[in-house]
């Protein structure tokens, strides 16, 4: 990425370090919990299904699930953005 990319806060592609971190997160979830990326995607879809019974504003593509490592326990963190629902 050229310096113009730096100047305007990121370019078309994510920096490789954050790509590496994201990939590692997924791999470590798989290694430790036998939860494959496919299963994780399926989990997101099903989460969206359940949530949409209560909130019609959830898009499964937008759900982000990350693993947080802790000394004693690991956590799965789900970020679920809601589409603005004022018009509906």
């Amino acid at each position: 990425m050229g310096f113009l990319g730096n100047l305007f806060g990121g370019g078309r592609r994510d920096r490789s370090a954050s790509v590496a971190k994201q990939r590692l997160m997924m791999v470590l979830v798989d290694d430790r919990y036998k939860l494959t990326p496919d299963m994780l995607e399926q989990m997101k879809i099903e989460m969206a299904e359940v949530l949409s019974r209560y909130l019609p504003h959830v898009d499964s593509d937008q759900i982000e699930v990350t693993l947080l490592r802790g000394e004693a326990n690991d956590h799965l963190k789900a970020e679920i953005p809601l589409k603005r629902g004022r018009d509906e």
Partner: protein
Amino acid sequence: MARVITITSGKGGVGKTTTTANLGTALAMRGARVAVMDADIGLRNLDVVMGLENRIVYDLVDVVEGRARLRQALIKDKRLPELCLLPAAQTRDKDAVSPEQMVYLTNQLRTEFDFVLIDSPAGIEGGFRNAIVGADEVIIVTTPEVSAVRDADRIVGLVEAAEKGTPSLIVNRIKPRLVNRGEMLSVEDVIELLAINLLGIVPDDEAIVTSTNRGEAAVYDQHSLAGRAFLNIARRLNGEEVPFLPLQDQPGVLERFFGIFGRRRT
């Protein structure tokens, strides 16, 4: 009371042997009686890294099988009389020694030294298990690369399963400039991924190549950043509070734009 510390990594080539040699030397420079043991049976290397390859008469397997006494197999360092190497056998394989024999051997070393540092082989098989079986503490060395971090995570699980406590972490070969550009995992990233305590950060340093070529520890080189980092880790092992070296050199605005042309700071 001696402390037996195993240095391991999972992945090969991340700097276990260099770390063992430098920490052993640094601890001995600070007055401790130190034994470094090469547990990589069949792929002996700690001797050449320490420049002691010409002095080997007996090895670890000779001691275990009773052909030599421990005293006969221990090689004194060239400069530091309180630093000794127990070399691995080169012509045998990892099955030549049993876990019980390793425990017996490390307990023998405990009586004569303040620190026993064990250089573990790569991998998760018998050689690795032998290397940790007699240890009180385990240090994991990793580099900021996906493969090394992934393997380190496996090792954390295995060390905990072996009831050796949570290992501590050395992140080796950090390139601050790449980290600043967002093109290398940062130390913070690695800690967040592995969730273990940080013991040290060792910057990537060409001086390691030259010191290894000569069979001298980098901790003797005042100008080596990696050498200074290893000295600091040795002090932390001794219980001192030592701040981490400032790696994230703050580049100026121009330098940030033209990073690769910027002068290297030390």
